[in-house]
């Protein structure tokens, strides 16, 4: 039964490590690092999804999937639920977390805004749901908004 803090420590170190490896500092290198981290998150999410009982993943509709993500997955990973979930009922969802645990330890201040996108964008957690709810095809367009280092907004546009 690993303590929750361990995941946070490990995650920070992983991002630092996998980011540092790429010698290419430009957008090409960044993209590579991001996709490596995303791939890891995807595998973790897939494994987690396999471990859950069948009924948990028997979602009747999209909104159930998002609710599972905001309540169960978030609670399991961050010990808190997502702060708000909004939708236009036409395939676009906005998930908002006002105190995203993986960013909250960074000091708030403009200089860190540049560093911050490495972390949530790189966070394996964003792709966890993609696999934990592997009954859906997640070819979603995701954009990450960071008005401040503690706020995280993610919009998901799901294909029809």
């Amino acid at each position: 039964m690993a303590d929750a803090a361990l995941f946070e420590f490990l995650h920070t170190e992983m991002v630092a490590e996998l980011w540092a490896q790429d010698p290419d500092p430009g957008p090409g290198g960044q993209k590579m690092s991001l996709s490596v981290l995303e791939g890891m998150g995807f595998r973790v999410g897939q494994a987690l999804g396999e471990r859950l009982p069948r009924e948990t993943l028997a979602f009747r509709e999209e909104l159930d999937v998002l609710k599972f993500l905001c309540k169960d997955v978030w609670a399991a990973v961050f010990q808190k639920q997502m702060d708000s979930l909004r939708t236009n009922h036409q395939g676009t969802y906005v998930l908002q977390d006002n105190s995203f645990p993986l960013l909250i330890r960074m000091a708030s201040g403009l200089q860190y805004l540049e560093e911050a996108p490495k972390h949530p964008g790189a966070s394996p957690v964003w792709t966890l749901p993609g696999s934990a709810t592997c009954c859906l095809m997640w070819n979603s367009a995701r954009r990450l908004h960071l008005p401040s280092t503690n706020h995280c907004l993610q919009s998901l546009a799901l294909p029809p």
Partner: protein
Amino acid sequence: MSRQANRGTESKKMSSELFTLTYGALVTQLCKDYENDEDVNKQLDKMGYNIGVRLIEDFLARSNVGRCHDFRETADVIAKVAFKMYLGITPSITNWSPAGDEFSLILENNPLVDFVELPDNHSSLIYSNLLCGVLRGALEMIRKLRYTANA
């Protein structure tokens, strides 16, 4: 009512497996990036060290243990307090050297290796080497803190 109860246990289950699975994904990635096991071992140790130097503050803040008076006490605190707090296990302390400056920690149920099988071509990989790094980092920080406090 039962659905709520199920939710709780699912979250807990996911939470405890998350760390194990993430660690597994990390080692897999490192094996891809580095060509030989020795380099992966070194990398895990280095990452563990970086985690350890920060983890020690979290540990001191949460555990309220006082100063250890000798190495045996340190060993006890590591096995019975630290490992219990972070990994939920209590390794056994054995193999004390005659001089009392070396001992072994044996982990019967290492949570890091749940679901893990090492293939034959990675026989010299020290899978849990991160733990060694964490211990090294944490204890080095303790030593530095001690000297600063005494100065």
